[in-house]
């Protein structure tokens, strides 16, 4: 309760408060409705205008990279579920790809298709959840429930596929745990058809809504240069005009067999990030339809005797495109059963690092909008 606050909290460039300026500090988080978990943003505010943001992370740092060093590679797959739990199939796939690459394990054709189908379903699911949360952060609660309702339909599919709704643990090096259940493909196609009309409805409810437009257009602009410098990937980078999609540029699995577009934004504001994600859902539906059409018969898992050991002093590196961007797995091996070191590259880590660039100079409400369009998953950042 000092009149003149002399101490500058760590990370800030300037002091606030006191008799001279009108600025003050405000904490948002770790328990705050808009921070999507336990992110803590410390904000220097001037009235309603955000002057500087210092993000504090680590409130859900669960030392997954340390634990990985004492667990076998297969056991590690279930830990990757808990990184980006909204794209856990993709994070599973990231580790599986790294193991397959390092241990030279092959994957049957059908399994490759199953992987694509499941990953794209998950991308839609994740974006639906994002769409709902985005609308909720802007105050439209109904859209949040609509998004969740559609998401439940895909969650049901996953539950039937692998028995879990959120932490799937479905992929294995060399394939998947189980084959697709009966009548799975028609149901996916039905959801695709349904999603097409639903997305149009969403456009009417949210995308075209004047208030949403006013609140997102020209807000939270991230230029192409700044996005590159911060290492942004995924929809955030694409909204800034960076043409980088791991699925297109370094196709893993069989992504190069499918015909899809990479939506790009021009300005890098919140509205671009929004439209890029909505468009990505449409593209995912395209991929799903192609994959469901071409799905071959065969094994769902490689019948080789599993040898999931990466040779000594080798490392393997894989990148996958999760719903949030480039998720890379870097495995260093000393030849043992457990990895010597695993490093997961989390896309959101870079995005949250860039938030000061994006949101300072705008209003406090815009900070919430910017955060919503970054779609952060905090455990993914903290690992």
């Amino acid at each position, binding site marked *: 309760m000092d009149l003149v606050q002399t101490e*500058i909290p*760590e*990370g*800030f*460039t300037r002091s606030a408060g006191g008799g001279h300026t009108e600025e003050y500090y405000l904490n948002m988080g770790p328990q705050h409705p808009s921070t999507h978990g336990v992110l803590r943003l410390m904000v220097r505010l001037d009235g309603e205008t955000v002057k500087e943001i210092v993000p504090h992370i680590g409130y859900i740092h669960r030392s997954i990279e340390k634990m990985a060093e004492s*667990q076998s590679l*297969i*056991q*590690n797959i*279930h*830990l990757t*579920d808990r990184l980006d739990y909204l794209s856990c199939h993709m994070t599973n796939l990231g580790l599986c790809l790294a193991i397959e690459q390092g241990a030279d394990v092959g994957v049957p054709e059908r399994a490759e298709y199953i992987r694509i189908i499941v990953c794209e379903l998950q991308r839609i699911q994740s974006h639906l959840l994002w769409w709902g949360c985005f609308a909720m952060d802007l105050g439209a609660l*109904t859209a949040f429930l609509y998004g969740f309702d559609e998401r*439940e339909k895909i969650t049901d599919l996953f*539950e*039937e*596929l*692998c*028995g*879990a709704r959120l*932490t799937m*643990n479905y992929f294995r090096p060399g394939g998947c*745990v*189980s084959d697709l*259940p009966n009548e799975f493909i028609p149901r996916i196609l039905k959801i695709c058809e349904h999603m097409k009309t639903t997305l149009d*409805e969403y*456009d*009417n*409810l*949210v*995308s*075209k*809504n*004047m*208030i949403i*437009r*006013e609140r997102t*257009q*020209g807000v939270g*602009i991230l*230029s192409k*240069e*700044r996005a590159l*410098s911060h290492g942004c990937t995924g929809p955030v980078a694409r909204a800034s*005009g960076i043409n980088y999609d791991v699925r297109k540029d370094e196709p893993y699995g069989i992504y190069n067999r499918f015909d899809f577009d990479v*939506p*790009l*934004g*021009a*300005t890098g*504001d919140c*509205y*671009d990030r929004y*439209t*890029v994600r*909505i468009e990505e859902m449409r593209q995912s539906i395209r991929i799903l339809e192609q994959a469901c059409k071409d799905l071959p018969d065969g094994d769902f898992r490689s019948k080789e005797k599993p040898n999931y050991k990466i040779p000594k002093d080798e490392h393997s590196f894989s990148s996958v495109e999760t719903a949030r961007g480039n998720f890379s797995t870097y495995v260093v091996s000393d030849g043992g059963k457990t990895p010597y070191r695993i490093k997961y590259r989390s896309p959101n880590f870079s995005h949250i690092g860039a938030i*000061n*660039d994006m949101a*300072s*100079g705008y209003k406090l409400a815009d900070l919430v909008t910017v955060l919503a369009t970054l779609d952060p998953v905090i455990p993914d950042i903290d690992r």
Partner: protein
Amino acid sequence: MTTPDQHQDTPPQNRPQSRPQNMGAFTPEAQAEDTCTKPSFYAYFIKRPIVGAFSLLTGMGITLKTLCNVTSTVTQEYPENRDTLTMPPAFRGQVIMPHDEEGEHKCTACTLCEKACPNGTISVLPMKNIANKKVLGKYIYRFDQCTLCSLCVEACPFDAIRMGNDFEHATVDKDSLVMVLNEKEGRL
């Protein structure tokens, strides 16, 4: 203390504060008017309110449609629908050890599941039975620690354990979550 953004090539102050007219390839064309640049009187007082009001009314139409359409309600009333609620066969609710009619199970205390478990959830405690053979003495399953990854079920070569479909495990007693899965010692 110096700024983290000290070395930035573009300081945030010099950012463009408004959107350029071209909003990218995938922007819906419906009303591509720019809200940040200076609008004309017509655009501000006539066009914008009309277009805006129309967009708001469309949104209201969607919610009204949902309100009027009673069948759109998707709520499943959980405690009331307990009798009809079924989980998909693959559902992972908890690890169970099926017992046959005689109360026998298939576990041979090989500890593969114990080793497969990433969380240290399972303790397979073997014993010598009356025939002096190694059998299962006690199969401790710490449900409070289990992540239901089903690696133990995959590892089991005898199909002795599998994932159960029950999910109603909420309890006020934490200790009750540490379970002994086998009803008696291993098969002779």
